[in-house]
């Protein structure tokens, strides 16, 4: 009796969490369906050459971004793997993790501050081209920003694969006298080849669903992706029929990509943790050392450039005036409240799912996995197929029948951002929870510890560290996000990224730079805390 009730509580919590996610996603689709059946002629007519062009551009820029990120990343990862110890190596690896934490809009601004029309490099480029540098907008801007985000990510993932090569194989290659080319062919390439489909798939997915970069750096109808087109259809043209056609295309495309990635065995969430560098016997020749140094320095300059530019441009703005501005203070307050609530909600839902999955697993013993357990396992991943903009668009269309759409902004931003972070938080929480459960489950049953007492005495102490990590991570993600708020934001409800976007579009560049610095720092602090709490656990 005790046994089953102790499980029932956890399973009910998981069912509730799943129902909440299903409601959020289902509501969006309901909104789309209701509208589509009401105006099916319009929706059908919206499958026009414009949509085809946008869909083609979405895939084309994602493909180019993937190629430009992953191929250089192979060389960078290899160079780092060949030199397991040098001054500044761990600093470079940490720097390569920064783009993961940086809000896309901050990175976009950094890229503009460096390569834009009025950027730091503009005089150099103008002199080189003997013409006024037009700045990077459109495809080139999108590509530079995507590579800035994804080259370091891909390099870290590939490096992790290379570092899993057994030490003895490196030793063997040294003993057999393999040069750089032979050891690439026999040792490094087989490992890279196995890791590449997953890494490339992840980068492609991230670029195909990238919204903020394309919104801020893409220019006009020639460089628009599906997500940005959905946003424009709803915010500017108010053309729900077109939004529906675009949304269906986007969902179909991402579902296809995810299915393809599943076949390739790719991990959709991308884990960026690296094993500690083992002692490795490597004896690169002098010319190889030189080439590797050049590769690493180039990558370093490319990644550090926009970050430095963000800091420099931010410091040049009138930070003290900005900090006293009413609009800034209001946006800061809104951002903090939204992101903290979103992170708390995300944590609750994630813990409920993780506990339910484990409880179901124990209850079934060795039997086969039921559909419900399967859902608690993969339900959180749903949001990867249905990007936040899609959920936002569906609800936007539905809610406008119920009154002022913009009044729903707080609810929408908090819930969608919470669900958006779940694939990551579940991955942080689940190993810790399952390991603790494996240790304590029998003891708890024997001592009759259950319900709230169990959560307080047994589960929470083991989850506290990972929960801190997950909370900080979810909060940083939500804080920097410009997705749902781009749709639902208004003069009444503004977050920091929304305010930043507004200042950018009204060409108040200095203000935008100051805001970007501030937002970037805030997210970095949260990510730093997430990392700290993550380490304490280990």
């Amino acid at each position, binding site marked *: 009796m005790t046994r089953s009730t102790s499980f029932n509580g956890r399973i009910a919590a998981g069912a509730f969490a799943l129902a909440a996610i299903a409601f959020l996603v289902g509501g969006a689709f309901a909104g789309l369906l209701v509208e589509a059946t009401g105006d099916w002629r319009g929706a059908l007519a919206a499958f026009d050459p414009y949509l085809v062009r946008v869909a083609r551009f979405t895939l084309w820029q994602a493909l180019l971004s993937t190629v430009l990120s992953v191929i250089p990343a192979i060389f960078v990862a290899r160079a780092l793997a060949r030199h397991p110890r040098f001054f500044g190596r761990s600093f470079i690896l940490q720097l390569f993790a920064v783009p993961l934490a940086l809000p896309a809009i901050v990175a976009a601004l950094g890229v503009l501050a460096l390569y834009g029309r009025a950027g730091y490099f503009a005089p150099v480029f103008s002199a080189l081209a003997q013409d006024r540098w037009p700045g990077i907008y459109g495809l080139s801007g999108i590509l530079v920003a995507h590579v800035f985000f994804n080259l370091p990510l891909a390099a870290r993932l590939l490096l992790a694969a290379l570092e899993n090569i*057994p030490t*003895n194989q490196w*030793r*063997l290659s*040294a*003993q*057999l*006298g393999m040069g750089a080319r032979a050891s690439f062919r026999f*040792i490094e390439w087989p490992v890279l080849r196995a890791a590449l489909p997953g890494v490339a798939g992840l980068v492609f997915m991230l670029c195909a669903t990238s919204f903020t970069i394309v919104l801020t750096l893409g220019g006009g109808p020639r460089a628009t992706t599906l997500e940005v087109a959905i946003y424009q259809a709803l915010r500017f043209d108010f053309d729900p029929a077109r939004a529906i056609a675009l949304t269906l295309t986007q969902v179909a495309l991402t579902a296809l990509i995810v299915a393809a990635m599943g076949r390739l065995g790719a991990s959709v969430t991308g884990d960026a943790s690296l094993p500690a560098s083992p002692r490795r016997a490597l*004896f690169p020749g002098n010319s190889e050392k030189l080439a590797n140094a050049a590769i690493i320095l180039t990558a370093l300059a490319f990644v550090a450039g926009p970050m430095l530019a963000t800091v420099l441009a931010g410091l040049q703005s009138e930070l003290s005036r900005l900090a006293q501005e009413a609009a800034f203070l209001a946006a800061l307050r809104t951002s903090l409240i939204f992101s903290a609530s979103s992170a708390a909600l995300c944590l609750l839902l994630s813990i409920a799912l993780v506990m339910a999955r484990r409880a179901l697993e124990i209850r079934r013993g060795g039997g086969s996995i039921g559909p419900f357990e399967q859902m608690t396992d993969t339900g959180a991943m749903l949001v990867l197929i249905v990007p936040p903009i899609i959920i936002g668009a569906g609800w936007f269309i539905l809610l406008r029948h119920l009154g002022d759409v913009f009044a729903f902004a707080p609810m929408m931003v908090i819930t969608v951002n919470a669900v958006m972070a779940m694939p990551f938080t579940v991955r942080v929480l689940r190993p810790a929870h399952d390991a603790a459960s494996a240790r304590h489950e029998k003891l708890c049953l024997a001592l009759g510890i259950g319900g709230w007492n169990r959560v307080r005495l047994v589960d929470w102490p083991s989850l506290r560290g990972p929960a801190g990590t997950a909370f900080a991570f979810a909060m940083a993600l939500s804080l920097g996000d410009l997705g749902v708020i781009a749709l639902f934001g208004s003069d009444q409800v503004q977050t920091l990224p929304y305010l930043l976007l507004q200042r950018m579009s009204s060409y108040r560049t200095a203000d935008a730079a100051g805001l970007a610095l501030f937002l970037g720092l805030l997210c970095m602090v949260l990510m730093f805390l997430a990392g700290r709490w993550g380490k304490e656990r280990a």
Partner: protein
Amino acid sequence: MLFDLQIESSDIVAVMGPSGSGKSTLLNLVAGFERPDAGRILIGGQDVTDLAPARRPVSMVFQENNLFAHLTVEQNVGLGRSPRLRLSEQDRTDIAAALERTGLVGKERRLPHALSGGERQRVALARVLVRDRPVLLLDEPFASLGPALRDGMLDLMKELHRDHAMTILMATHDPRDAARLTETMIVVDGGRIAGIGSTSDFLSGNGPEAFDLYLGAQGRKE
């Protein structure tokens, strides 16, 4: 750690001692995977202290991961002749001979995962044969094999030593392996050489105190 040691050429030597005592470090120093902070390493009178591993007259077989998982048996052996796998007719004849010598005929085209643990170590030995270097280092090479396979491997090692007269250093935890194969024994303890002498002497209780402690009751029965 501090090693002061001289080994006769063509000797077969067991290196024994507790885990973490420095057995592997000693072998890695000879192979060149680690460099000494001070001092010299001479092989056959030649100072090899500053030579890269590939240029030393040494082959080494590890406990595991001796083979590249994506290459066939033949290719894995061929790497011992050419690190870029550019093999001449003569090379191929030698590889075939080495595979025959190690009892791997008919398995040339297999990948390592289709081999048993014992067969994988035989492939590593076949590579040692085509490399044909005067010194062979074995780092617990039979530790993951069952007793029967182990005996077969030890017999094979004995034959190879008789034919090629290499100097062999074998790190091992098993006194039976040492007794079956080796003439001389080095006892390593706490990063130093605690003793060097005849294997049979040491195993019958005339070794250094550290060695008796390491063996415990098990060794003295042998």
